[in-house]
């Protein structure tokens, strides 16, 4: 590779990218009839006028997506110098009269800014407070985004609202599987009885699988996970999630069961491939090397399993543990 030539290619790409329309040009084009003045297309850092125009674009509920994105970009880039722009964005987010897709784009920009929000710590409480009011928004997408962000911040208010929904004390904010998933960002021992009840009496199959996933964090649920994993009549997703949970909560009990699944002729191939994979990577290599019955079985599966995944799993196993 000729490096000077490579550099010239990149320079040409940069030159081309520099000619793409920015916020000013998009704005000028959108104002049909109005003669775009010469300064419209000129590049350069955002001015006060640009920022005022960008905020107006959002407040007007601008339908043109490229212009709207460019406006959000202008604001986002200027936030480091003018943290108060966050307030303007929060204002649009909270204005239920604006279109939901615009508010969603604004929320995504605020969340993108939150990766730098340490630079303006004073804005954080306001942002979280705004999110708390959005969790009851009629728009489901907006609601879910706000709940997700708060759940990841371990926000107690949203946790209580999610529990209330799952317990049936108030209308659910989100489907049960999402509520459980959100609670998983800050798992508390007091959730475990609720999760076990959901496993027994699930509002949906997906909610049941999510509840099983979280129960891995509960040492006293290992028996339940083992029961779910060993039951061949059980739903495949639930068995796999139980396997992963048991593998984490009680590795020795999992490995015993995984071995059984590998040896059993009458088992699900996906679960068998998964069990072989788990043993390959995490089981004690010395114990495996002494286990002639298991090694023999894995060699046999490599030769004649009908499942490509099982054969692939046996090859990794034998590459690492075979003799």
């Amino acid at each position, binding site marked *: *590779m000729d*490096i000077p030539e*490579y*550099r010239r290619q*990149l*320079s040409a790409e*940069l030159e*081309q*990218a*520099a000619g793409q329309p920015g916020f000013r040009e998009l704005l000028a084009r959108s104002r049909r009839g109005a003669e775009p003045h010469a300064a419209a297309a000129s590049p350069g850092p955002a001015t006060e006028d640009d920022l005022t125009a960008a905020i107006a674009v959002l407040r007007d509920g601008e339908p043109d997506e490229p212009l709207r*994105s460019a406006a959000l970009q202008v604001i*986002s*880039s200027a*936030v*480091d110098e003018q943290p108060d722009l966050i307030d303007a964005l929060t204002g649009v987010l909270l204005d239920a009269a604006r279109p939901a897709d615009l508010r969603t784009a604004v929320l*995504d920009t605020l*969340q*993108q*800014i*939150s*990766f*730098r*929000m*340490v*630079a*303006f710590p004073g804005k954080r409480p306001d942002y979280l407070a705004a999110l708390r009011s959005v969790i009851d928004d009629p728009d489901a997408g907006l609601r879910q*985004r706000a709940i*997700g*962000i708060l759940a*990841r*911040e371990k926000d107690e208010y949203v946790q209580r609202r999610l529990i209330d929904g799952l317990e049936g004390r108030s209308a659910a904010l989100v489907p049960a*599987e*999402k509520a459980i*998933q959100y609670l*998983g*960002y800050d*798992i508390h021992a007091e959730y475990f009885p609720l999760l076990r009840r959901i496993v027994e009496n699930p509002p949906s199959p*997906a909610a049941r699988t*999510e509840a099983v*996933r*979280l129960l*891995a*964090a509960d040492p006293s649920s290992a028996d339940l996970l083992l029961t779910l994993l060993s039951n061949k009549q059980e739903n495949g997703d639930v068995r*796999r*999630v139980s396997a*992963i*949970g048991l*593998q*984490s909560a009680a*590795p020795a009990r999992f490995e015993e069961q995984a071995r059984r699944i590998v040896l059993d002729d009458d088992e699900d191939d996906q*679960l068998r491939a*998964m069990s072989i*994979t788990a043993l*390959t*990577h*995490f089981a004690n290599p010395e114990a495996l090397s002494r286990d002639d019955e298991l090694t023999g079985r894995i060699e046999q599966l490599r030769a004649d399993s009908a499942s490509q*995944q099982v054969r*692939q*799993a046996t090859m*990794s196993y034998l590459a690492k543990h075979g003799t």
Partner: protein
Amino acid sequence: MRSEITFNSNASPAARYVGWAPVPVQVQLADTTGATDPVTVRLRNQNAAQGGQVEFFTSATNTGQAEIELSLPVTGEPADLRIAGVFQRPSSADGDAAVEVVDANTSEVLGVTPLMVRIRKNAATLSDAERDRFLTALATFNDRGRGRYGDFRNVHTEAGSPEAHGSTGFLPWHRNFLLDLERELQAIDPSIAMPYWRFDQPAPSLFTGDFMGVPNPHGTLQFSAVNPLQFWVTDGTPGIVRPVRFNTQTQHANVFSEASTLLLGGQDAQYEAFRQLEGNPHGTAHTSFGGSISSIPTAVKDPLFFLLHANVDRLWAKWQWHFQRFDVESTDTFPAQGKAGDPGANRVGHNLDDTMWPWNQVTTPPRPPTAPGGTLAPSPLTSAPGLSPEVGALIDYQGVLTPPTRLGFDYDDVPFEFPAAS
């Protein structure tokens, strides 16, 4: 008679990894009984058709040569030269490159030294074997939530955030964070280099059950039955939550293109302006998904974090190469010269001469109250950037201006060049 090559004065095979930046090596003769005259030898790639390729530099040349002739004394006195990978001819497996030393007069092969041209690659271009080695090392390091990955997870939180974000130190801090994980993975499997997610291009092979997973309808990832990432656990809870907000099979994330990103610093390439990339594309790439990766306190729960940040770091590296921004004393390269407490200085951790948390293990305010994970993982290839590095040690990562600062990694599309003679 035979010939030996030593990398970086380290005879161990663990030192036989190169990138695009030239590495000092020593060539010498051994078993010379009976011989009296110096021997002229030729060094070349054993197989020029396949595997990683290297080129050779003598101290007199700054241009790599495919073959080089040297005269070696029979006393066993070593000759110094430098070896680098040939740009865009990386290895795909450990030891798939090899330097052959032959007697220039008799063509007798005096020695063959296998090595690896180990390069951080676009994740979408990895072979199945490269991908599986990476996933295995990652899963082994996490060890079902019992391993040391938890330390990395516990560093990137609300408390640690001011050390890493919102100021000049964003890029150097994350460069070190990546390097720390990469070195830990290399201790498990030295053939691994951190792959990157090029978020401004579609990466369909990355977002599959065999690689980084596919979300189910409510966003919990599903993996193929042979993928060790299916056993991923953080904070005591299995699984990774990552709902998508773009079509990962046909689209890229809604972020600035590489070219637009490289222009953020302006035509005069100022770091202070370039670091706007912390918003778009960096923050935007994080929020192109829902789930863990879209919030600071949970982002590292999802190992895609490191592929995302490898791309952010690659963009910085590419900007540095294109605009020649390696001189740590230039404010174009890094504006926050000096250290915290100096007039006009930034927050501690964001100035050139500040050490970085957690690797400095400082837990007195304003640093966070704990410093998980200890000092930086060491490397058999280099002592840079030090176990408790200062910000400035992360900048000239290829050793362009000061060879000893070479950090031992390179990207598949960012070459090494000697400084322009001016």
